[in-house]
């Protein structure tokens, strides 16, 4: 009786582990979807208009010029938005595929794992690009006479920083998916 109970407990544990691993992957993909979506939106609506007063001629009062900073001004930001959009779409597709196959199809799981890694590469490269360009905007670069921009466009720069952090969280989620797959393979 005791051994029977122990066997049944083991069965339940194994089935729980299988379904809980499936659940964890679902949760991670949902998290990646939401994080990349919010990152793309936050950077995609980033626009700030301020007035800069220029003194053209010393005798006349300074002229107020409106200057606008949009996310399309820098190609690194455009790259980040595109990559986040791709990662979001992929998260949606992989979520659907996972729900349809319930983790049973080995080939689909393998392909999803390989594509997860591609998403990690794309997201990290976009974060690197936006981070370095944003750093130039924040600090300027005296050696090449590139002036800082973030003292004028502070709200714009804050939104860029938020988008970078969200993309970083999204890429960490994709890394966790790979870690999860490796741990699952190890335990089998």
């Amino acid at each position, binding site marked *: 009786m005791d051994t029977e109970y122990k066997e049944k407990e083991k069965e339940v544990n194994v089935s729980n582990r299988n379904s809980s691993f499936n659940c964890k992957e679902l949760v991670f993909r949902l998290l990646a979807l939401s994080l990349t979506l919010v990152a793309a939106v936050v950077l995609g609506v980033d626009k700030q208009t301020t007035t800069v007063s220029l003194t053209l001629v010393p005798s006349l009062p300074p002229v107020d010029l409106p200057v606008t*900073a949009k996310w399309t*001004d*820098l*190609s*690194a930001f455009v*790259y980040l938005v595109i990559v986040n959009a791709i990662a979001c779409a992929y998260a949606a597709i992989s979520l659907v595929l996972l729900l349809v196959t319930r983790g049973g199809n*080995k080939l689909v799981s*393998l392909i999803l*794992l*390989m594509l997860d*890694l*591609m998403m*990690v*590469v*794309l997201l*990290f*490269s*976009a*974060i*690197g*690009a*936006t*981070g*370095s*360009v944003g*750093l*130039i*905007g924040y600090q300027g*670069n005296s*050696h*090449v*006479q*590139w*002036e800082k*921009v973030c003292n004028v466009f502070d709200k714009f720069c804050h939104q860029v920083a938020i988008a970078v952090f969200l993309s970083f969280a999204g*890429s960490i989620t994709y*890394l966790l998916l*790979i*870690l999860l*797959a*490796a741990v699952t*393979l*190890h335990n*089998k």
Partner: protein
Amino acid sequence: MASHDTTTPPHATIEKPLKSSQLPQQYKGSWGPALDVALRMFLFATAIVAVIIMAASKQTKLISLFPGFAIPLEAKFTQSPAFIYAIAALSVACLYSIITGVLSVFALMKPGGSWTKLQFHFVILDALLLGIVAAATGGAGGVAYIGLKGNSHTNWNKVCDKFGSFCSHLAGSIVLSLVSSITLLLLVWLSVYVLSKKLARG
């Protein structure tokens, strides 16, 4: 792999495993281990060449303000934090490829299937390093693109028309670091494939 467990003959344990012809029976004829070591050596090669090219990219130009007076202007990789990070990340990749290459070869020499166990750890570590190198590639690429084209919206003027040799060195280094990240990607794909094949068989 579990189906043909090797029972090594008694004299094999005293032999010193030196050549690849003395690989344990289970790895003979399988291309996975050879490809793994080859990719790691390739990663080492591309990473170290990228580091060397970027480090040797310094260019000095004499800008003459008025006749008889010239100031030297220098362009080197230390002027941008993105390039400093790129060199650091590629050096780490270089060191990592040596260490894991040696570990992989040692695990292959030992009979007993420890190489496939090592691949579990390699998947995670390779993926982490892939993220780091990809960020370095992206960062250096972003800054170099601005240096090449300039940016009219932020009034950042282009640099590459004055410092052509500096820019071509940087371009070579960035291309090589892209190749390194693709190599790391292939390494993780290979490890995942080998592990899934092991599961299918065993």
